[in-house]
C-alpha cells in the first residue's frame, strides 16, 4: 500500500469537495441577492397599480384639491417612466411619489366623510402596507447583500471567490434628497390643516442601509396606526405612512 499516494489523493478529493460546496453556497447567496432586487420591483409596481383606484375614489369628494390629485398622477407616471432609467433615477422618482401620496393623505384628513369611507380606508391600508413592503424588500435586499459580501470576503470562500468570478454587490442606499423632511402642502382648498398631518423626521420610503449598527432612527417602513385620527401622537407619523 503506497500510503503517501493514498493520502495525497484523499487530500485532493477533500479539497475538491470543499471547493464545490463553497462554490454552490456562493452561487445560492448571489441568486438570493438577485431575487431580492427583483422583489423590490414587484412592490413598486404594486404601488403604481393601486394609485389610480385611490385617485378615483377620492376625486368625487375633493373638487378643490385637484392640484394634489394631479401631483400624485404625474408623480406616478414619472416613477413608471423612471423605471427604465436605472436604479438611482427610479429611487428618486419613487421618493417624489411617496411625498405626493403623503400630501394626498394629509388632505384627506380634512374630509370627514372621506376619512370614514370604507373604500378609502381600505385603499389607505393597501398603500400603507405597500409602502412597508417596499421598505422591507429593500431591507431584505440589503440583508442578502450583507450575507453574500460577508461570505465572499471571509475565510475560506475568500480564497476562491475572486478566481471564480464572485464580485461584491452594492447596498441599496437612500438618496441625499430622501434624508430631508418632506414638506406637506396644506394650503389647498383653504381648509385648516388637521393637526394629525404632521410630517415626522423620518425620511420617506428610504430603507436603512444595512451596516451592522444599532438602528439610529425609526425606519420609514413601519407606519402609524390605521386610526389616522390619532393626532399629535409623536409615534404616529403622517397618516399616509
Amino acid at each position, binding site marked *: 500500500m503506497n500510503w503517501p499516494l493514498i493520502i495525497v489523493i484523499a487530500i485532493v478529493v477533500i479539497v475538491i469537495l470543499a471547493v464545490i460546496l463553497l462554490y454552490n453556497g456562493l452561487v445560492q447567496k448571489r441568486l438570493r441577492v438577485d431575487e431580492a432586487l427583483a422583489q423590490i420591483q414587484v*412592490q413598486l409596481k404594486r404601488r403604481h397599480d393601486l394609485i389610480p383606484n385611490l385617485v378615483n375614489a377620492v376625486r368625487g369628494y375633493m373638487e378643490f384639491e385637484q392640484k394634489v390629485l394631479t401631483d400624485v398622477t404625474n408623480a406616478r407616471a414619472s416613477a413608471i417612466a423612471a423605471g427604465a432609467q436605472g436604479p438611482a433615477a427610479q429611487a428618486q422618482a419613487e421618493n417624489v411619489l411617496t411625498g405626493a401620496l403623503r400630501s394626498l393623505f394629509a388632505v384627506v384628513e380634512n374630509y370627514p366623510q372621506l376619512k370614514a369611507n370604507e373604500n378609502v380606508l381600505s385603499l389607505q*391600508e393597501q398603500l400603507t402596507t405597500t409602502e412597508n*413592503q417596499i421598505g422591507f424588500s429593500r431591507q431584505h435586499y440589503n440583508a442578502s447583500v450583507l450575507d453574500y459580501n460577508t461570505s465572499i470576503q471571509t475565510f475560506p470562500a475568500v480564497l476562491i471567490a475572486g478566481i471564480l468570478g464572485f464580485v461584491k454587490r452594492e447596498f441599496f442606499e437612500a438618496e441625499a434628497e430622501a434624508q430631508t423632511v418632506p414638506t406637506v402642502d396644506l394650503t389647498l382648498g383653504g381648509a385648516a390643516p388637521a393637526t394629525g398631518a404632521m410630517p415626522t423626521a423620518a425620511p420617506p420610503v428610504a430603507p436603512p442601509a444595512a451596516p451592522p449598527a444599532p438602528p439610529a432612527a425609526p425606519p420609514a417602513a*413601519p407606519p402609524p396606526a390605521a386610526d389616522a385620527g390619532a393626532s399629535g401622537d409623536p409615534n404616529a407619523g403622517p397618516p399616509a405612512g
Partner: protein
Amino acid sequence: MAATFYSQIGANKRNSFLLALVVIVLLGLLGSAIGYAMTGSTAGALAVTIGAVVFGALLSVGSYFAGDQAVLAASQAHRVDAESQPQLFNVVTELSIAAGIPMPAVYLIDDTAPNAFATGRDPAHASIAVTSGLLEKMDREELQGVIGHELSHVRNYDIRYALLVGVLVGSIALLADVFLRYTFWFGGGRRSRDDRGGGGGLQAVIFVVAILLAIVAPIIGRLVQLAVSRQREYLADASSVDLTRNPHGLERALAAIATDQEVLEVASRATQHLYFTNPIKKFEQRSRGLFSTHPPIADRIDRLRKLTGEAPLTPAEEQTLAGLD
C-alpha cells in the same frame, strides 16, 4: 452599554447551543452509567444510550409532522385570509418579506387576552396564530413587533429546536424511569455473567452512580429545557428587531401585554411555552425564574432598551409590570 441585535442574537444562539450540549452530555452519562451498571460492559452502555434516544425520537415523530395542527386545534384557532383580516394579513406579509421566508398560514383565536404563537417544523410549513384581543389592543407598530417575534421563531427553527431538546430530555426521563423501576422491582444489581475480576466492584460503584443520576438527571434536564426555552425567547425578541429595525414597537407590546389582566382560556400547561408571553399568569407568579418557559417581561424590555442605549426600567416601573404580570 448599548448592544446591537447582532450581538444579542449571537449570544443567544451560543447559549442555547451550550445548553443543548449539557443535555446531550447528561444523556450520555446517564445512558453509559445505566448500561454499564446493568451489563458490566461499555458496549452495553452505548447500546442503552442509543436505544433510549431512538425510542424517544420515535415517540416524537407524530409531533414532528402533525404537531402544529394538533396545537392549532387545541387552541381553537381558525384560519383567516386577506379579506377577513386585511391588516393582520398585511403585517404578516410585510414581515415575511423582511425575513425572506414564505408566507405562513395565518390563524385567529377568539379571545380577549392579547397573545400570539407560531408553530411549524420549518418556514415552509409554518402557521401563526394571534388572538382577537391582540388585534384590538395593539397598534400597527406593536403588532409588527409581535409578529416579527413569532416569525423569528419560525425562521430560527425554534419549534424544531425545542422538539429536539424535548426528545433528549424525554429520553433522559424515560431511561431514568425504566432503570429505577427495574432496580426497585428486581432488587437491583443483577451482575453480568461475564464478571471479570475487578469488574464487579466498579460495576457496583457505577450502579450507585446510575441510581443517583437517574434521580437527578430528569430534573436537571427539565431545568435545562426551560432555560433553552427562555434563551430562544430572547433570541426571538432580538431577531424581531432585526426584522423591524424598531425595538419600540415590541417594547410597547410587551408592556401592554404585561399589564393586561385577561386570562387566555384556551392555553394549557402543554401549550404555554409556545405563546408570545406566558399565558398562564398565575403559574408564572407561583414559580418564576428557573421553572418558567418565558423570561420575565421586565428583563425582555431591558434588553430591548439596551439596543437603543436607553435606561433600563426603574424599580417602580418593574413593580408595575411584575405586580400585574
